[in-house]
């Protein structure tokens, strides 16, 4: 269950980003999670809710962008027919080596927040 640690890091990053720009409330954050990152998106969202609950950002949403790994065989081209998570470095068709690209994403992409001055101007 390291999703809780990851959610804590995501929130820390978001909070630091907002704090650097002045006081404000986090509305949503978008993260990129790769297929090879050993992270379960549903658990990450669940952990996120636990991390933000009770604070000023309790309503903040976490959006997870899922990034599959791309596997390419020099002979057969892109390896498409595989079960999710079944990523190998050997082509299931010809047994040749497969290049794996991407899928290790673990990034905060962007966030939306409401500055306190906008809040009071309403």
């Amino acid at each position, binding site marked *: 269950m390291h999703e809780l640690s990851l959610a804590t890091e995501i929130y820390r990053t978001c909070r630091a980003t907002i704090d650097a720009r002045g006081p404000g409330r986090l509305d949503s954050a978008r993260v990129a999670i790769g297929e090879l990152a050993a992270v379960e998106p549903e658990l990450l969202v669940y952990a996120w809710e636990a991390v933000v609950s009770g604070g000023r950002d309790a309503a903040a949403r976490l959006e997870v962008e899922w990034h599959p790994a791309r596997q390419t065989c020099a002979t057969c081209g892109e390896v498409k027919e595989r079960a999710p998570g079944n990523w190998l470095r050997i082509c299931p068709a010809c047994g040749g080596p497969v290049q794996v690209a991407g899928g290790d994403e673990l990034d*905060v992409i962007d966030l939306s927040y409401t*500055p306190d001055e906008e809040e009071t101007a309403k």
Partner: protein
Amino acid sequence: MTQVDVRQRILADNAVAAATLRARFAAARTLVVNLISSPGSGKTTLLEATVRALGGRWRLGAIEGDIATDRDADRLRALGIPAHQILTGGSCHLDARQVGRALEEHDLGPLDVLFIENVGNLVCPTSYDLGEDFKIALLSVTEGEDKPFKYPSIFAKAAVTVVTKADLMPYVSFKLDEVRAQVTALRPGGTLLVTSATTGQGIAEWCALLEQRLAEKRGGGS
């Protein structure tokens, strides 16, 4: 509402802490090995066998990660090597900051090899760089031969897979050839060692591998 591009690795803070550790280990010319496996596959037992084989010649030390109890560090201290126990209190993995704090609290002295024994778990420790030279994954024969494909991330990231408890192979249905094929598929060029701390099988090869990696690290300049 204001949108801000963040574009930052989630584990950026861990990466910074790991880079600091890596520089420190390079300056100390210490080889650092991060041991990852499920609970009970024999990480501490492999370390005990390693200390018995190399302890007289090399300065070895260990950082032990567990949710509770000092038992692992106690077992290694009993063999005469410095060991520090990190209690994670429920967390399923070690991170680089914990390792950094452990080294601040407890000076293990100059070391040839530092072993970092992670919390028993085949998933979560995979994501956290601890500044190590390489990761090893342990797989005991009683766990079954399907584990590399079921937990692909760690077997792809580990430079070495160590099969443990090989002396039990006659009593369980464990297909070593399948493990070899799975590990090769996930990590072409990776090393697979077959060991038993009970009979001593493979321990010499394991120690030779450590010796080679240490020589490479020191030969490559510090």
